[in-house]
Each structure stands twice: as C-alpha cells, then as structure tokens.
C-alpha cells in the first residue's frame, strides 16, 4: 500500500515498535485466567501487551478460544510503574494506618520479621503465626515458611466465600466445571447467580455463540443485570428466593412426568429408603450389627423387595429402584419400620412449591415458571453460576435446588450440560517439589510412585473407594499433616480471636430454625472433634501474634469489616507483614511492606484452570525494579532469616500443639533441594518438567518448550488441586465436561450415600428442616427494619482491589466507589445521579456515589466489590456494612462428605442481601 508520509506518521509508527517480545499472562486470582499475551519491551521497559490469540481449535464444530484477554490485562503493564508500586522493603515509622514508612534493607526487615515469628512461637506457640491465603498464584511463593514450619494458613475460601456449599452437599466434590468451549454446546443456558458480562469477559462469547447456534439464554437475577441484555429472557427473581423458583420448576417437571427417571434412579439418592420413624436413611447397621453404617437400601419397583444399593457402582444390577411406595423393613431388634424413597418425601415437600405458591415467594409469574421448566426438561441445559449463591445465608439451599433441577432433567455428565464455578489444578510440580528430596525427574518419578502407592493403600479397608474419594480423603488429612501451608478453616479463629462471637450469637441475624445458640453449635462441633482440635479448639487459647499477607488485602475483603479487625485483632498482633507489588489498605496498616515483583518481572503461570485446561506461561520480560524480588526469592529469604535468627537465639526446634517437633534448621536446604532450586528459573523449569512426569503436561515439556509456544494443553489432572474432582478424562480433541465417570462409567459419587445426594440426614439438618432442598428467607442481617437489600459481585474493571487504582481503568467508570439505586427509589429518597450517599447497616456505614438506573430492582442496591477502602471517605467500604454472619449448618460435620478439606466444606460468611438504609450525605 502507498506509504503514508510525514514525520507525524513516523512518530505514530515509532510508538508501535519494540525490541523484544516475551510471553506474558497475569498470575492473579482472575478466573478462569489462562489468557496468553505477548509482552512488548523497548529500551528495557515493558511498553504494552496484546493478546496472543494463539490457541488452536479443540473440538470440530466448536469455536476456538481466541483472543482471550480483557481490558485489565490490556493495561496491566501500567501497574509496573504505577504510583502505588513498591520497590523497597518498607518499615512502619508512624502509627499503624498512618502510612508513614521508611525504606530499609531486606536484612533489617527480615531479621525483625523472623524475630517476631520466633517470639510468637515462644509466647503463644506456632499456631499464633497466621498466614492469609489468596488464590493469586504468583503470591504463593512468599508464604513457603508456613509450609516449612507447619504454621496455619487460614483457608481463603472461608474469607472470600468462594465455595458452593449446596453443590458440595450434593456431589461431595469441589466444583466440577466444564471447559469454557463446552458452553457452546448448551441448548439452554441459565445465567444464574452470575454476571459473566463483567466477570468472564474472555469467554462470555461462548454464551453468545451458543445462542447463535440455536440455543436459548435465560438470565435469572433480581436486577436487569448486564448479563441479561443478551439473553432471550430475564427472570427478575426476588432477592434470595431462587430456591423457591427452582423447586417450583422441579415440581412442574415431576407433575408433567417430564423427569428423567433413569437418570434419577441411577445417579441420585432419590430412590434410597428413609425410615419414616426417624427421618434417617435406612442403614446397614439398622439391620445387622456387622453391616456398614454407610450401606443404604432401595426397593425394587417390581415386587417391592428391599435390597442394598450397591456401593461400588451406580448400575442398578437388575433392580428397577422404586421412587414411590412405602415398604416394611424388620430391624435387627425385631421391630418393623416403614420406609419410603427420598423421591416420595421430595414430592410431599414440593407440594409447598407449586408454581402459584412459589410465585408468591419469588415474584416470578407461574406461567414463566412452567414455561422455563418445560425448556429445562427438554434441552441440554447448563446453569452458568458463579460464586454468588454461596454468599447468601441460605445459598446452600439455593444450590441444592438448582442441582435438583439438573438431576430431574438428566442435565449433567454430558456435553453442553452441568454447572460452572471455579476449579483449578495441575500445580503438582510446585506443590511436591520439597518432597522429592533431590533434583531431577527420576526423583519426581519415585516420589510419584510413592504417592500413588499411598493412595492405593487407602483402598485396603474399602476396595470400592474411587479415585475421587481417595483424593478427598488425602485432602482431608492436610490440616493435620501440614503441607500446602497447613490450611485451617478460620471460623474458630475468627470466633474466639477476631471478635465474631458476639455477632454470630445475635439471634436476630440468624435463621429462626436455628434452635440453639450459636455458641452451643460451636461447642458441639469442637467437642465432637468435627474440625480437629488443631483447627478448632486451639484458638480458644491461642492469640494471634504474627499476621502474614502475600497478595491479599484483608482489610478490604474480610466480611465483618475493618472495625472488628482493627479493634479486636490488630492489638494482639506484634507483627503484620504485607508482601505485595503495591501499597494497599492492609499494607498501610502493616508493620512491614515487602516489595514483590510484578507479572512480566518474574516467572509464573496464569490460573491453571479447568475452564481452559492450559498451562499458560508468563515470562520475565524485565527484571524487578529497585529491590523488589519475586515471591520465590522472598520466600527463600524469609526461610534464611528464620534460620539465621533462630541460630543467633539458640533455638533449634519447637513443638507445635499437635505434638510435632519441627526443626528451625535446614529449612532452605529442604525447600531448595539443597540449593539446586534456589534460582527462580531453575525452580520453574523443574516444576514444569515434573508436571510432565506427573502426566499433567505432555512428555518433554519444559520452560524452553513453553517459551516457544506460550502455552500447552493439559494431558491429565495430577493430584494437587481440583482436577480429579472433575470426574472425567481429558481428551485431546474434545471439550471437557465433568462427571462423566459417573454418568458413563457408573462410578459412585464421593458423597456419604455415593450418589448425588439430595437428602442430608445429618442430625443438625433434620433439626433445621433442611434434610431436603427447601426455601428459607434470608435473615435480616444488617438490620430488620432497614429498607434496602444490598447485593454485590465482582466489578468489571479490576481483579478484586488489585488493579482498582489503575488510572486508565478508573477513567472507564465513575472513578470512585459507587452504588446502583433504582430510579424510583432515588426519587423517593430525593437522591440525584452522581451525588454521594451513605449506606448504613447495624454494623457500620460507607459513603459512595449514587448511580441511578431502572435496571436495579426497587428495594435493591448494588455495590460491586473491589474498591480499596482508602478510596472511600473515612476508608470504610462495603465490607464494613456487612455483619459477616455464617450459617450455623456450616459447622456440621462428622458425616460422610461433610468433613473439612482445604477450600471446601466449612463455615463461610454471608454477605449478600444485607439490610441497609440509603441516606443523603449532608
């Protein structure tokens, strides 16, 4: 083409030149992440990045994944020299929160930090060193001391409630999810408790494209959400009533005979028999002393004979399990009891949820309920769900009701069906590095064999145990064994030490069916050892002394608010450390802030997520500025400091509350395989090569091969993470859909009853009337008489608060925290668009700018989260008006799959539908 001439043209051309291109991505807690970018460097400085768009198609007839990325990624490089960037270790010199710091050397900082840790061990025990978790992959390396010392890491999933309790109750699994290209194959997509237009920018297109492919899209949300605009239907369900809506669809489907009987019989507990006298499942040890407590029964609809439901398979073996009828069974004591299938009990329960009755609860027209039910029953249906439902007080009931809808319609375990959420895996190479003992892939191979053998041994007492069940079992051992930071469910720590005891015992804020005081449930859970003494009882006595944060921002995210933390927790702490590339609100309240390398300044990978099934490299394009270091290096430096200070103080080891003696020597040697993995590049290469040995990546994968192509697709799940929870085999030329080991191979589920479980006969659930999915109103947390309910979700412009302060991104919205208010509500409150308002609940208040829209439901206010507290006047943000309540049933355990595993079943706080008032700011 003809040359465009002129100096002006050349100056534009000059802007688009570079001297180096590297692979980049963002190793942040973005989901699913996995976007391959090219990072362009000129004169030793990263100038910009652009999506690589290099994914090859997977399945014939399904669109490719390109060009994954978003606006945040498109200006990430600006954060490398942003005003909040930290490049030197900072020591606090003013009061906590004032923000007065002075730069110090790494040695000064780390000696002080190590001394505080050693003091804490002497004073309160090693349990008083609290490490906070964040799923930001890049940040994990700095926390390696907690692994080495076995000190607790509080389970992040409790802090940010990224958990689907109802799906856990149903499947016993951590979030089975399909790969994102599978969404194209859905015939009906229900966007429900999710806002993918904001939160799944890089793959929302599959939803739009499934619609163009002949599918329909229905968005179910209280507001006319941005994710409703491209739907065929919007269902404006009243806040917190989704269970009623879903159960009414279930009722419609059963009454119309549209349910998939074979699927229900085979995959679910609905045919299992329940004793009418106790409401408990009929169990093997009801019938004979030597039979199993976890043997369950069904009746053959041909003849009514009651037989044990096989534990080793879902296949019915010649029985056609009855879904209805009442049967007599003689117990071991000679008494006879009546039993009936769960399905029959469910039908009675659903009498409360006819479309007409449910409509009065959820405010959805009965005809709409019937029409949608019919669609679900006749189409390959997916529920596009996020982690919104689990953040409701009764989110478990909502999710169980949604799972029931899919069960009745046979909508999981085949392409184009199921639910979505968050699941990641494939980090075995990093997680198991220290366990190898020596460098090299032979060592990896041997360690892998040892782990495989250990798993095999776990079938000795029960040969019917599946891989999923073994994986869960191993995971449940983590809090006791340590490893991966010895994760603990933090509810007990919060309860006794962070000041939540008073709040959680406020009856007003709990469900009326909570029969006893919260305290009684906590004590019972501890006394019965449901969460292990280490996790639960310890914090009756142990006061936290050291708080270590890497990549997180506790003072923004902790539901319940800063006031509680600063009043109750902060005074107990002798040392607060924030490792980050930037100064955030928690950093401002820390004693030391340690400067971390940014992405593009260190080696890493984007979120290794099941949604895209790729290992995506983010390479070091430039070195970190000043004295910033990669978290890998920071982690090792901390270990060195602990060894150094322990030696100087004559401390060689300590004994923790579990009675384990742990050395304060040789920590670096173990973590680095005697120095061989000291170098970040060597460590990363080794982890990738080991992943190839573990079958997660193709044979021969190394850092060098990744640098050629930028990514590589997984070949297997590995053992760390949530891979095996997917219960499907990865195929090279197919989209991934989970649970196919169950639907196709008939392997049992990882629940107590070994089927998708809708009936939970745990005594607390029976007491609460929640043995079956039902609807309950959200308790009036925040204040019974307050006019509005606040809902929330991730915003469009940042990954939590991480890049919220990016100037360009701030310019793409209001540039300050805001709240959506319905237009008519605004009129009644005399509030105009753009003015500042105060949101007030019983526990606090926050000031935001009002944004007025008819898309917001009357009576609803929407505050998208992620704003830094220091962006609000007085620094009180959204979390400060959330009481941070947890539903007491989260403490229920000692029941099959209701047991604590990291990132899994545990008490999680509710922050949705908090009652607030909206006030004008004078």
């Amino acid at each position: 083409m003809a040359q465009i001439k002129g100096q002006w043209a050349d100056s534009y051309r000059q802007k688009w030149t570079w001297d180096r291109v590297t692979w980049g991505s963002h190793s942040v807690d973005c989901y699913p992440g996995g976007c391959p970018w090219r990072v362009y460097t000129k004169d030793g400085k990263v100038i910009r990045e652009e999506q690589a768009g290099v994914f090859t198609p997977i399945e014939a007839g399904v669109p490719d994944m390109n060009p994954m990325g978003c606006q945040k990624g498109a200006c990430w490089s600006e954060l490398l020299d942003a005003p909040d960037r930290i490049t030197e270790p900072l020591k606090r010199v003013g009061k906590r929160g004032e923000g007065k710091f002075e730069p110090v050397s790494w040695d000064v900082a780390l000696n002080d930090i190590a001394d505080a840790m050693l003091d804490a061990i002497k004073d309160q025990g090693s349990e008083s060193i609290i490490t906070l978790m964040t799923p930001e992959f890049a940040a994990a390396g700095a926390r390696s001391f907690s692994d080495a010392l076995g000190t607790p890491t509080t389970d992040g999933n409790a802090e940010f409630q990224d958990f689907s309790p109802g799906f856990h109750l149903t499947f016993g699994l951590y979030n089975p999810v399909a790969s994102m290209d599978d969404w194209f194959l859905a015939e009906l997509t229900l966007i429900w408790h999710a806002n993918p237009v904001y939160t799944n920018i890089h793959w929302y297109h599959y939803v739009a494209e499934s619609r163009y492919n002949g599918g329909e899209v229905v968005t179910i949300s209280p507001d006319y959400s941005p994710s409703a605009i491209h739907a065929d239907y919007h269902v404006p369900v009243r806040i917190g009533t989704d269970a009623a809506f879903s159960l009414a669809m279930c009722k419609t489907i059963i009454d119309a005979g549209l349910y998939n009987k074979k699927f229900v019989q085979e995959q679910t507990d609905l045919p299992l028999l329940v004793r009418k006298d106790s409401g408990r499942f009929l169990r093997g040890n009801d019938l004979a002393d030597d039979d199993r407590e976890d043997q369950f029964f069904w009746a053959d609809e041909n003849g009514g004979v009651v037989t044990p439901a096989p534990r080793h398979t879902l296949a019915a073996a010649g029985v056609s399990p009855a879904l209805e009828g009442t049967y007599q069974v003689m117990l071991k004591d000679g008494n006879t009891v009546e039993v009936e299938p769960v399905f029959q009990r469910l039908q009675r329960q659903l009498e409360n949820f006819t479309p007409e009755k449910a409509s009065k609860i959820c405010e959805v027209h009965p005809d709409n309920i019937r029409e949608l039910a019919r669609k679900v029953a006749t189409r390959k249906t997916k529920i596009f769900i996020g982690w919104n439902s689990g953040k409701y007080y009764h989110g478990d009931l909502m999710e169980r009701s949604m799972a029931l809808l899919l069960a009745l319609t046979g909508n999981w375990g085949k392409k184009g069906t199921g639910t979505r959420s968050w699941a990641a895996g494939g980090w075995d190479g990093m997680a198991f590095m220290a366990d190898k003992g020596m460098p090299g892939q032979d060592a990896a191979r041997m360690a892998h064999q040892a782990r495989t053998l250990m798993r095999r041994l776990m079938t000795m007492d029960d040969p019917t145990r599946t891989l999923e069940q073994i994986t869960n079992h191993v995971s449940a051992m983590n809090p006791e064994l340590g490893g991966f930071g010895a994760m603990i469910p933090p509810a007990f720590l919060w309860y006794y030490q962070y000041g939540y005891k008073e709040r959680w015992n406020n009856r007003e804020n709990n469900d009326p069916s909570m029969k006893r005081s919260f305290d009684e449930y906590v004590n019972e859970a501890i006394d019965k050892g449901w969460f292990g003494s280490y996790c639960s009882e310890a914090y009756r006595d142990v006061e936290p002394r050291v708080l270590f944060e890497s990549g997180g921002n506790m003072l923004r995210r902790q539901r319940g608010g800063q006031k509680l933390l600063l009043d109750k927790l902060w005074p107990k702490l002798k040392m607060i450390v924030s490792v980050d590339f930037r100064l955030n609100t928690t950093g401002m309240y820390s004693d030391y802030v340690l400067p971390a390398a940014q992405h593009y300044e260190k080696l890493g990978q984007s979120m290794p997520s099941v949604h895209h099934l790729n290992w995506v490299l983010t390479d070091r394009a430039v070195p970190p500025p000043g004295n910033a270091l990669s978290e890998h290096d920071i982690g090792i430096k901390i270990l060195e400091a602990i060894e150094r200070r322990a030696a100087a103080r004559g401390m060689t080891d300590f004994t923790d509350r579990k009675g384990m003696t742990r050395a304060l020597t040789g920590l670096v040697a173990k973590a680095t395989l005697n120095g061989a993995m000291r170098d970040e590049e060597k460590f990363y290469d080794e982890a990738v090569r080991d992943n190839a040995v573990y079958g997660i990546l193709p044979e021969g994968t190394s850092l060098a091969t990744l640098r050629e192509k930028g990514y590589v697709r997984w070949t297997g799940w590995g053992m760390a993470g949530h891979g095996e929870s997917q219960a499907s085999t990865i195929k090279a030329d197919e989209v991934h859909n989970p649970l196919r080991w169950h639907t196709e191979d008939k392997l049992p589920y990882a629940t107590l009853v070994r089927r998708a479980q809708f009936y939970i006969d745990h005594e607390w659930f029976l007491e609460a009337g929640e043995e079956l999915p039902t609807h309950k109103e959200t308790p009036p947390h925040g204040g019974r008489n307050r006019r509005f309910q606040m809902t929330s979700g991730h915003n469009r412009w940042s990954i939590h608060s991480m890049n919220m302060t990016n100037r360009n991104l701030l310019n793409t919205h209001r540039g300050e925290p805001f709240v959506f208010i319905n237009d008519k509500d605004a009129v009644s409150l005399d509030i105009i668009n753009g003015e500042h308002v105060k949101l007030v609940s019983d526990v606090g208040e926050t000031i935001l700018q009002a944004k007025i829209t008819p898309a917001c439901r009357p009576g609803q206010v929407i505050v998208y989260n992620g704003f830094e507290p220091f962006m609000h006047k007085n620094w009180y943000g959204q979390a400060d008006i959330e009481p941070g309540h947890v539903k007491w049933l989260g403490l229920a355990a000692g029941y099959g799959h209701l047991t604590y595993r990291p990132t899994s079943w545990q008490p999680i706080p509710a922050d949705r539908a908090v009652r607030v008032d909206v006030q004008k700011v004078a």
Partner: protein
Amino acid sequence: MGTVVPSKRQLAWAFDLNKCIGCQTCSVACKVLWPGDDPGTEQMWWMTVNTQPGRGTPRDWESMGGGYDADDKLQLGRIATEEEIGGGWNFNYDEVLHSGRGRDVHLEKVSGSKSWGMNWDEDEGAGSFPNAYFFYLPRLCNHCTQPACLEACPNDAIFKHADTGLVLRDEEKCKGAQMCRRACPYKKIYFNKMRNVSQHCIGCFPRIEQGVAPACVRQCPGRAAFVGFLDDAGSIVHKLVSKWKVALPLHPEFGTHPNVYYVPPLSPAPLHEDGSFNAAGQRIPPDYLEKLFGSDVHGALDVLRSELDKKRRGQDSDVMDALILYRWKDALGHLTRDPAEIVWK
C-alpha cells in the same frame, strides 16, 4: 476547505452489538497504544464504548450538530467542551499513600471533568423495572466516505488514504483550527492543547501497513468486532454489510457515509403487566433503534430473528455461522498477521 478525493478501496469495521459486552478492552487497547501518557491526551479515548440509551461521550454528542444536511451541505456544529467530553482524571495517589495522613485523606480526583466521564452512564439505560433495557455501543472514527471533518478543515490537513479509505490527519498541516471538531457529527475528534493539534483515531495504520488488524478489533475478547475491505467478497464485513444487510451505519442521516457498521441489538422478551413473558414484544423500542440506525434496522433485525430461528429449528444459517466466528482470525479480514512475528530492524 478540503476536498474529498475518494479512495480506491474502503476499510470498514463491523461490531456485533449482540456480542459486545461493554468491557472496554478495545478502548483500553487503543488508549494504551496510541495516546498513551502523552501530554494533552488525558481526555482522549479514540475508541469508546457507551451504554445506550445514554448521553454517551462527549455528553449528549448526538445533539451537537455537524455532518451534511439533506442537500449535502456541510453543517458546522459545535465543539464539545472539556467538561462534556469528561474524564481526564488524575488522582491524589501521593497524598493518600505517602503523606502519612492516614484516614484524613482518601483517593479522589484532582484533575479532569467534575461531572462526566467517557463511560459515566455505564449500565444505566432506560425503561422501567422490570422492563429496563440497554446495550453497548462501541464507537471510533467512522472513517467516512464523505468526511465532514475533511471538508471543513481550513488547512487541508485531513485526507482520505487512497488504499484504505482511512481518514487521516497530517499533523504537520493541522493548525488546531478545530473546524473538524465542529463538523464531525460523531464528535470523535479531540483537541490536544499541549500540541495545538486535533487528534482522532488513526485506523491503526502502522499496523495495517504490516498486515496486522487494528487493536480494537484484534483485541476484542467478545469476538464482536470485524474488520475488512468493503469490496472484499470474502470478508465477513462485506457479507454483513452488503450481502446479508444485517450491519448498519450509525446515524446515516448525518450524511457522511460512515464506514463503521453495527449488527443491531436484540433484547430479552419484556414482561406483561402481570409479570408473564411477552414473547412477541420488543424490550428495546424499535423507534429508538430506528433513531440510531435508520429505518433499515427493522429489516436487519428481521433477518437476524429469522436466521436465529433457522438454527433453532436445526437448519443451517450462514449468517449465524459468520457471527459465531468459529475461527477468530476470520474476523480480521486480510489483516491476520500476528504482530509478535514482526522483527524491527
């Protein structure tokens, strides 16, 4: 006054408003690449996405005039004020993070518009709950076939590039007269006070010269953006615009013959008064869409609906298959080169 010399070929953009999710990746990609941190460009977003209905950016731009009247006579409208363009914000980072004043100060704007931003009315829309409605509208320079800016320029600085039809500005000739800003009916031209030149989208010509698609298209994660020569029968843009007539220009009545086209938005079924679905109803008032895209919008929506219906009945649809975009590179027309392959000497 400049004279329009028609180009040999015309590069055109198409945006599928049923896939656009308002994420601003196009806006940010453009901002980072071109204006960047250059002094005087603080308010410049050559690419913007706004929620419609809405006042957009600059605020109420549609009523500022410009373009051609029914007799093809050039109209000089008015220039948007800095306040109307909005944004250009910088913040008191230093004061909050380094002054040691703790909670006495919080992060707030210290420069720029007090009352507007490039995406100020994001996700507000119109209607009345539960029948609210809105959609996203990405906008850049329309690289018009009859560019009013070109004709209005007293310094002959604006020209239509012969090979691509891009409307470019010779910044050495530009004297900052800003007649172009008055004449452009889309108000997509900005003024750089520091350099005393106006600036607008350059169509990513340095990329196009190298066979690489414009950043706004290549970086669109919604796969809603297409680029290609209008006369390239193989390009999706050509098919959408000329063959299937499902992509339409914005405000054709402005008379400049814009070369950015839009697949108009469908919307969810509205609800009747009693809350039941009104499957035959249209949530976005057709009149409103006609105001934006002209009367052809009804035909375009009919085609979309009937092609969707074909797919739902299990039949083939070339229109839907093109919009699905099985292979992303097909959106890029002839501009499929991977920029990372380029090695600058």
